[in-house]
């Protein structure tokens, strides 16, 4: 029956509206019941319904194509590999089933459902995992870069200690309030000399020496500061010299850098108590 044909045998005044609405799936329950009755009475109208469903099914072709998300096809294939398939195209005759068969069918259906859910969840988890792995990789790359830069800086410092110390000396000398003590050798170290550099309210001192020998492991150089002519020398740390003659250390007391009138460097045993005992090798005045 042509869609818009009018005849005295029309099954319902609005049957064509009902067909169109049915194809779109937007009939009310009452309208669906009416159409169902019409289709029962005139089964040839099923072809009209099918034609409209086919027409509407083509509508998505006109949509602007969206790019497919990556990984979707892989997720589908993975799900297909785990999901069981139905191989029967024929509807089975309605026979009384053994309870165990019904149980088996329900179990199979549940397995299919679980496989689908698990497949979907796995896909989403893989997406999250991929995002997290990317973040971790980025962080690791940054960390690796920082580590490489630090290692390079350390290597440079080790390879060029003199240059490194030299820069520190220059930094101190650039300060307007830098304290510089010229040191002269005394006693057995008469040929030694050097400069002691520090800053007020600064905990580090820098020694630049000449002909000051590197001591054996059981000996140390100790720095003593004399705040005024009446004060006793104050222990200001110990060190061993380096081959290049530059060494830096941290003083134990801020008073060490409180512009003492005199500084003394002695040689002591490592095990000696921190009292002025060993022979002086370098002395300097402000």
């Amino acid at each position, binding site marked *: 029956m042509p869609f818009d044909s009018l005849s005295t045998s029309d099954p319902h005044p609005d049957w064509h509206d009902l067909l169109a609405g049915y194809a779109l799936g937007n009939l009310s329950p009452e309208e669906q019941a009416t159409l169902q009755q019409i289709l029962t009475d005139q089964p040839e109208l099923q072809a009209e319904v099918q034609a*409209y469903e086919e*027409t509407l099914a083509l509508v998505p072709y006109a949509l602007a194509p969206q790019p497919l998300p990556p990984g979707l*096809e892989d997720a589908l294939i993975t799900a297909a590999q785990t999901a069981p398939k139905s*191989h029967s195209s024929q509807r089975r005759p309605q026979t009384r089933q053994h309870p165990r068969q019904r149980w088996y069918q329900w179990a199979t259906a549940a397995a299919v459902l679980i496989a689908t859910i698990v497949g979907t969840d796995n896909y989403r988890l893989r997406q999250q995992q991929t995002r997290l792995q990317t973040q971790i990789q980025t962080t690791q790359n940054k960390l690796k870069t920082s580590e490489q830069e630090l290692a390079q800086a350390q290597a440079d410092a080790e390879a060029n200690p003199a240059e490194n110390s030299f820069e520190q000396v220059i930094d101190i000398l650039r300060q307007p309030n830098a304290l510089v003590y010229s040191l002269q050798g005394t006693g057995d170290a008469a040929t030694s000399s050097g400069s002691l550099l520090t800053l007020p309210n600064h905990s580090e001192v820098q020694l630049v020496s000449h002909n000051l020998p590197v001591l054996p492991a059981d000996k140390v150089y100790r720095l003593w500061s004399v705040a005024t002519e009446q004060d006793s020398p104050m222990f200001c740390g110990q060190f061993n010299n380096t081959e290049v003659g530059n060494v830096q250390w941290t003083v134990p007391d801020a008073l060490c850098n409180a512009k003492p009138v005199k500084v003394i460097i002695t040689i002591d045993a490592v095990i000696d108590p921190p009292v002025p005992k060993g022979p002086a090798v370098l002395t300097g005045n402000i």
Partner: protein
Amino acid sequence: MVKLQTKDETELISRMVQGDQAALSQLYDRYARVMYSLAFKMLGSAEEAEEVVLDVFAKAWRTAARYDASRSRVDSWLFLMTRSRSLDRLRQRQRQSKVVEAATNTAQVSSSDLPDDALLITERRTIVAEALAELPEEQRIVIELAYYKGFSQSEIAKQTGLALGTVKTRIRLGLRKLKQALGSD
């Protein structure tokens, strides 16, 4: 509708019945983009659209043996499942939020898309887009509200302010023209 038919698709389904995953991949390559675009259009969510496409292909794989070529084309079968699942999700949202979306954001169908990689899909897109473009706008809008939003005729009447009879008439006339344009008559 003959001009949109292909013969090899039923063969793909037969191969899927036999467990040929390459056939599934071939079907995916051909239709996944349209299905995803449909689900995305209806749901507005990339994540949900992905799930719908995955779900539909998983079902097609499991139930390929039940596909009846005499009842529907392969693409219609896939698109129908895609729309049904998307509508289910839309209605689930409405139940959860108790809010019906405003109908003013009517679906826009573009006929000026970039060509798809597949010549077949491009050809079909051109045909359908032209057919939709031939519809009067008032007919196209009510069809799209029903198709993409899943609105009932009463809901469309309420959202658009049209009389229910007018909605029904526009849907009927629009579908008739669309069917004629796509060669279903």
